[in-house]
């Protein structure tokens, strides 16, 4: 981020970088930066807080007028508290552990049943205008389950996405599947964090368990780059 700011400014374009990690901005000294005391991943502070987001953006934009760089200002306020919403509860009962231990056909059937349980909530999310992050591969959740099972059985299979190595293609598919679950789980307004959602998905759903298995298969790859990718790209380190 700060590197891009340096390069763009050197091409004659005025920049201001919002910085979630002030220490990094201080080290990289971009021409202008606004350090923000927000959660990682939330450079404008919080979702559905337009007034606060406008303040953050306005403060960043105002730095453009200055030419006494490197400028590093700090936004003074913490993000607003989340709206008063009921605590989140999982939309379905936890998957039975024995469901993940049968043969592939049995696992696929159990996963299809889990997906079917979530589909009404997912459709409610979509029909209410909710964002759909679950469409990178264009595959339906049941197809993704089949793909993950096939890859887990044969990690040397051909990539299902032209131009992308197989391990990256299954990562995109895994994200599509995860996002289908997240979207279904967000259909009922509730207070929930990314961590709580991750904990539910990976520990309490069959689909999440399949992605953990997928990660574990990739961790055994002969290719060090694939092992390194697997270690950081499927399940959040806790």
């Amino acid at each position, binding site marked *: 981020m700060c590197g891009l*700011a340096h390069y763009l400014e050197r091409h004659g374009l*005025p920049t201001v970088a919002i910085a979630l990690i002030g220490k990094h901005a201080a080290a990289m000294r971009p021409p202008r930066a606004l350090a923000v005391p927000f959660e*990682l*991943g939330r450079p404008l502070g919080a979702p559905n807080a337009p007034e606060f987001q406008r303040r953050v953006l306005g403060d960043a934009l105002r730095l453009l007028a200055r030419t006494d760089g490197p400028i590093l200002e700090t936004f003074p306020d913490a993000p607003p508290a989340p709206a008063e919403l009921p605590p989140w509860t999982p939309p379905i009962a936890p998957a039975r552990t024995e469901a993940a231990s049968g043969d592939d056909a049995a696992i696929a059937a159990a996963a299809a049943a889990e997906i079917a349980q979530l589909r009404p909530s997912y459709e409610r999310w979509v029909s209410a205008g909710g964002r759909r992050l679950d469409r990178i591969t264009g595959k339906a959740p049941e197809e993704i389950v089949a793909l993950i099972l096939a890859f887990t059985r044969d990690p040397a299979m051909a990539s299902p996405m032209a*131009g992308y190595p197989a391990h990256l293609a299954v990562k995109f598919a895994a994200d599509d599947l995860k996002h289908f679950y997240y979207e279904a789980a967000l259909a009922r307004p509730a207070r929930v964090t990314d961590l709580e959602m991750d904990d539910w998905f990976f520990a309490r759903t069959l689909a999440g368990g399949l992605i953990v298995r997928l990660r574990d298969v990739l961790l055994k790859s002969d290719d060090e780059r694939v092992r390194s990718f697997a270690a950081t790209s499927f399940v959040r380190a806790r």
Partner: protein
Amino acid sequence: MFLDDMPEPQRSALLDHLMPDLGETPCVGGPPLARRRIALVTTAALHGFRDPPFVPGRAEYRVIPDDMDMGALVTSHVSTNIDRIGILNDIDTVFPIHRLRELVAAGAVGATAPRHYSFMGATPPMAYAELIAEVADEMKRDRVEGIVLAPV
């Protein structure tokens, strides 16, 4: 997650990550904000769902046309640490396009640029050095006079 809530050793690893020294870059001036055309740059690996997803480690970018349906944006960022809940609930949490338009409507900002740009963070910045010349040329053609870069 706030940085201070991040467990060790991830917190220290992130905080103490050795940042490249790109020296200092003189600030470029410009007209008053109310007359500037502003482009957004995100490193959240956002793109339209029909666009090809990002490849980790490859220096590349996607264009987000100002007039595209922002509801079609997805992220192919590979990091497991990206806060998906914020993005799912409100794209302006990472890409403040609607807030920028409001500032334009209020007269505080001149205009939005016709094109915005998306990168995937975690790619070493030096990898972008040449590619940025191309992006900068496009921005100049669009008469951009200010860029807000938002991380993720």
